[in-house]
């Protein structure tokens, strides 16, 4: 579904990624773990097109997407959330989620200026879809008209997930979806992630520090350390891997 082969990325002299190889299988949850500064977010940024790798290829749905721009990748069905929430503060929750539908709509400039007619039809269709498929699903109907700044951290993370889901993605990249959340919020989020996978068959790739959650919900785990891939396999395999134990100084053991 989504595969990365021999990916190298460097900023000046710093080598952020040195030969990363893995495949996120269709309909499964793949986790990327590693200590701070291991290159997890850099990997995500390279996959979503914000950074250009200087070596290696990225394949998505059997097509090479290494060279294409981030917005084109999004229209191919790739959605992501961000580590430090990237919601648009000038818009309400509802508009933020609607923005996720951008790539699925066709309204052009002139029909937008006119609104009545095709644009209105399309917008109402989108609204219905989002209300029924996303807002209801993630249980955020009580906050849909709120400005982003009024929401708690956990809710903001959930809205970000909602925005990604509005894209109807075939692959979903989640960058630390439960970072900074308490146990209850973490459990909620884990449940939502599993529900997404179950209901829509979405391929999910997630970066996370919460080892319990990663071990619980992922079917495949990739471990990075200093930009290098040190292990890859099922949660049990990875947990036993001596290189991983060393990198984490016994945390995972």
């Amino acid at each position, binding site marked *: 579904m989504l595969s990365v082969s021999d990916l190298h990325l460097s900023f000046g002299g710093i080598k952020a990624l040195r030969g990363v190889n893995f495949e996120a299988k269709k309909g499964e949850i793949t986790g990327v773990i590693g200590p701070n500064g291991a290159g997890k977010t850099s990997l995500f940024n390279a996959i979503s097109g914000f950074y250009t790798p200087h070596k290696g290829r990225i394949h998505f749905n059997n097509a090479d997407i290494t060279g294409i721009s*981030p*917005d084109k990748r*999004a229209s191919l069905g790739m959605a*992501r959330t961000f580590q430090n929430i990237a919601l*648009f503060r000038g*818009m309400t929750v509802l508009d933020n989620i609607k923005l996720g539908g*951008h790539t699925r709509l066709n309204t052009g400039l002139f029909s*937008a200026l006119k*609104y009545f007619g095709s644009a*209105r039809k399309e917008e109402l269709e989108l609204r219905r879809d989002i209300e029924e498929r996303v807002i209801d699903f993630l249980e955020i109907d009580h906050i849909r008209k709120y400005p982003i700044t009024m929401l708690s951290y956990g809710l903001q993370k959930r809205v970000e997930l909602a925005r990604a889901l509005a894209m109807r993605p075939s692959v979903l990249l989640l960058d630390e979806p439960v970072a900074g959340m308490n146990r209850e919020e973490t459990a909620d989020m884990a449940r939502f992630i599993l529900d997404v996978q179950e209901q829509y068959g979405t391929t999910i790739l997630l970066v996370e520090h919460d080892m319990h959650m990663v071990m619980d919900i992922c079917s495949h785990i990739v471990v990075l350390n200093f930009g290098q891939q040190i292990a890859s396999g099922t949660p049990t395999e990875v947990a036993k891997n001596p290189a991983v134990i060393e990198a984490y100084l016994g945390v995972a053991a």
Partner: protein
Amino acid sequence: MINGNLKADYSADERILNNRNKQFFVYGSMFFLTLFPVFADDYAVLMACKMGILLIAVIGVNVLTGYTGLISLGHGAFIAIGAYSTVIFSNLFDGLPTGILPFVVVPLAISVSAIIGIIVGLPSLRVKGLYLAVATLAASFIVKFLIEQDLFSPWTGGIVGIDTPVPNILGWELDTKREMYVLITVLAICTMLAAQNLFRTRVGRAFIAIRDRDYSAEILGISLLRYKLMSFAISAGYCGLSGALGAYFYARILPDQFGLNLSLELVAALIVGGMGRTLGPFFGVIIIMLVPELIKISMSSATGGSLDWARYTAPVQEIVFGLLLVFFLLKEPLGINQITDRMLRAINRWPFARG
């Protein structure tokens, strides 16, 4: 919570005037504008026309600066392009029946303005903020300079300006200010509605996303190239329309009308009114045009219309203009629209506590 705000379907919730108070305000204002030429004197109509022309341009700048977050200090140049294109195309298509001439000339003027807007907007793909502000400023100086050149004076009239045609819409000759008022008001309302419509669709949401976090927007599937240039084209097109109306409104246009002061007036009106808000330009234009006018009137009445004091009027107006801008930036950065929003919120919640 808003009282009396029950919605039974999505289309009701997606309307612009989604509650009674907004409806009351907007329909009330329209009613007032309709009656206005009946009881207002010539001078008031003249002022209203000027405001309408400026308003259309400020709405355009609002799309670019307020919603897309691209600062421009040179949009006066697009008004100039719109105005001069109108005159030049009117002279060029002299053979056409006068009744349909505006229907050819005005869209052409808007297109020329929009295309030049796209060209000026090209640096916006690589530079942000300040660099763009100076780039647009530089472009506007160049446009004004070219208009003034003797080289182009057969078309533009050069530094002494050029006479403008009288608009004729399907045989209706708009040769009085009151008739122009009708045209300008109708167009101003239409353009305002069109701009508001943008922000109910994916196009407007893309603009706001670019303003708030451009790179995240790109990752969500918004092409920065396409939407930044589109925003420039829209704002320049609006300014082009404003310029076209200006050309029809004034008997003669001069390069000096479209200088730095005009560009600053656009931005100031936007800041005073409220950036990135629908009614921001509306409130801003009223303040920016009325306050200097009030100063002029009060100064001339205070000094008994003596000519000795008259020469102080212009500098005082200039200072007050600057002070207004600074005052709003320091005290109410979100503009008058923020004040009216607070009032509207209080009304919506009545009889419960404000908050």
